[in-house]
């Protein structure tokens, strides 16, 4: 059992990453009931935006100096793409049946992936991402990388800021109102179009923050990185209760820990040797999702949006 603390740390870090991406799914779903399947690709463009920012900086710039600028660049690119997608792909379809924007989202996801693959130099085989200096840091049984600290700090910070924004500000309350009933919210003088754009932008910004964490941790960004990450984050959002921002983060953490534990310990169960290990982590993650949805269809923290269907 001596690996347990390290595996827990692995799971929490991975979970923080999933959670940050999942917030984008859950916010957009909470407000417009759209599963934005292009969100995984928005996450990916955030990583490439940050990488581009790093590359245009004079070479030799310390990464500690460059990191805030990379954050800015990554967030900017992701937010611009998300807002453009909302304006030109989703808004015209707002009144259409639910499947139309969903298929649009899938199309957009493939288009974004292909555009980056074709036009970003060297993107085909993945670009290496700058690495934070220092580390590894050893704390008893747990070894952590500088990139892990980035995620440990970024995730709670983003989460806290979002909670404060949604709960305390006028726009945040406008978001809650729009989520509950867009028509009434509109009648009460809330500019729902603006609220929806803000939801897309916030989700994209969080995805970009996660994307930089991904690059720092795994050392590379690739056009295909959004596919599985997006799918997992979506799973996390559903697991936590889609529409609920706290649920998204909790779902991410649960999913991350479940994956780490499945990799480490399923093999140890007698008779389960064939079903454990790294290649089965995804299977166990989805088994967990199915079990949770069977027992608690609304997800771990329930769904806060009013049921309108």
């Amino acid at each position: 059992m001596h690996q347990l603390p390290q595996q827990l740390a692995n799971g929490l870090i991975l979970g923080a990453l999933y959670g940050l991406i999942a917030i984008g799914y859950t916010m957009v779903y909470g407000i417009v009931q759209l599963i934005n399947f292009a969100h995984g690709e928005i996450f990916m463009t955030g990583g490439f935006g940050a990488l581009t920012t790093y590359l245009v900086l004079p070479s030799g710039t310390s990464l500690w100096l460059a990191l805030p600028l990379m954050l800015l660049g990554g967030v900017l690119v992701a937010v611009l793409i998300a807002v453009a997608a909302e304006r030109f792909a989703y808004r015209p379809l707002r009144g259409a049946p639910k499947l139309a924007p969903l298929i649009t989202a899938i199309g957009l996801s493939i288009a974004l992936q292909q555009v980056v693959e074709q036009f970003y130099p060297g993107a085909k085989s993945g670009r290496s991402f700058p690495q934070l200096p220092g580390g590894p840091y050893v704390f008893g049984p747990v070894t952590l990388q500088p990139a892990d600290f980035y995620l440990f700090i970024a995730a709670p910070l983003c989460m806290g800021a979002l909670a404060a924004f949604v709960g305390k500000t006028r726009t945040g309350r406008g978001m809650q109102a729009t989520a509950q009933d867009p028509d009434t919210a509109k009648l009460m003088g809330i500019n729902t179009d603006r609220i929806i754009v803000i939801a897309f932008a916030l989700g994209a910004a969080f995805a970009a923050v996660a994307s930089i964490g991904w690059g720092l941790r795994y050392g590379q960004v690739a056009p295909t990185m959004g596919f599985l990450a997006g799918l997992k984050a979506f799973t996390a959002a559903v697991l936590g209760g889609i529409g609920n921002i706290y649920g998204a983060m909790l779902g991410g953490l649960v999913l991350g820990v479940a994956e780490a534990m499945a990799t480490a310990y399923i093999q140890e169960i007698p008779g389960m040797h064939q079903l454990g290990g790294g290649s089965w982590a995804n299977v166990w993650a989805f088994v967990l999702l199915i079990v949770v949805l069977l027992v608690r269809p609304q997800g771990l923290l329930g769904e806060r949006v009013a049921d309108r269907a």
Partner: protein
Amino acid sequence: MRKSSLLVVSIAVTGALTLSACGSRGEKKAGDDAAAGTVVTIGVDAPLTGPLSALGLGIQHSVELAAKVANDNKEVPGVTFKVKALDDKKSPQEGQQNATALVADKSVLGVVGPLNSGVAQSMQQVFEAASLAEVSPANTNPALTQGEKFDTEKKRQFKSYFRTATTDAIQGPFAAQYAYNDLSKKKAYLIDDKKTYGVGLVAAFQKEFTKLGGTVAGSDHIDENNLDFSAVVTKAKAAGADIIYYGGEYPQSGPLTDQLKKAGVTVPVMGGDGMYDPEYINKANKNADGDLATSVGAPVESLDSAKKFVADYAAAKYADPYAAYGGYSYDAAWAIVQGVKAVVAANSGKVPDGARAKVVDALSKVSFDGVTGKVAFDEYGDAVNKQLTVYVVKNGAWTVAKSGTYSG
């Protein structure tokens, strides 16, 4: 109701996304067939996009070079060679579609490819049915030529399948002997990617390593789509092995090495020819020093026969380097050229009817000195050249550690 419909929609969408990942792709046009004489096309199937494209593009360009040299030298009088390269994106389904497309093109008399053993499995039957010769420069899984029971009863699988690369049944033990005898490693941790190539390679390594007296500290598998290897890394670290053997390719093994070394693992990572690429060192973010890989054949740069290839390749100014399999791809294409030459010569200078089956027969008799040494095929379609080389990463570059032939 709505919640359950959400679940249904999400499952449907997940399925749709998975399917969309294997959409078809436009073929390259064969170009203007204005040249004199009969046009014979050499097909190429390899991953030309995606993470393995460095290897795939090297294969494509090396075949193009072989066709160019054959045309310039008028190697087969009255025949002009063309190359038709299709992208399989390392996917067996794409590979099979490409195989069907190549079979449908009547001018194709031989195919070089694929890169991945798993892709080859899905293509062999298609080519066999059409008696179209397939020569792989890179497949190393022994079952492709000798059947699943290759260590007890060898049986030729497909008459039309040949390869210029050596098999894992030789590569795995060669690596095990080097690790045990030359490096004095006694305790290995085994990781594979669950694909045909990786699993076969690790099994061959494990068999020889334990036979020599080494022990296996543990084993695990990774999912090739998932870049987070932290859980596997923690297990490998806890196992306390003195070498980590990986069966798979560099797009995964590079980041895996990076994560292993960052987590404080100091033992070397060793792999097969799928890992022997400069991209491995790039993806490992300078953490690869001391790591090892075996690759088929002698180092291309060291052979006299290869110097002309290297010079010609540089002169042709292709956009991508010839990579790990360039020499083998050139030899594979040249073997097809020689096969066509024999068939045309036997038919008084014309390409005969039913030329495909005749090319297959001619290939089994081909013998010449190629880029990688002597090129000929044994009774299973395997290369007779059993040369292997161990490479080690020194100061961020692959350098030769030991080259030799494996004998039992």
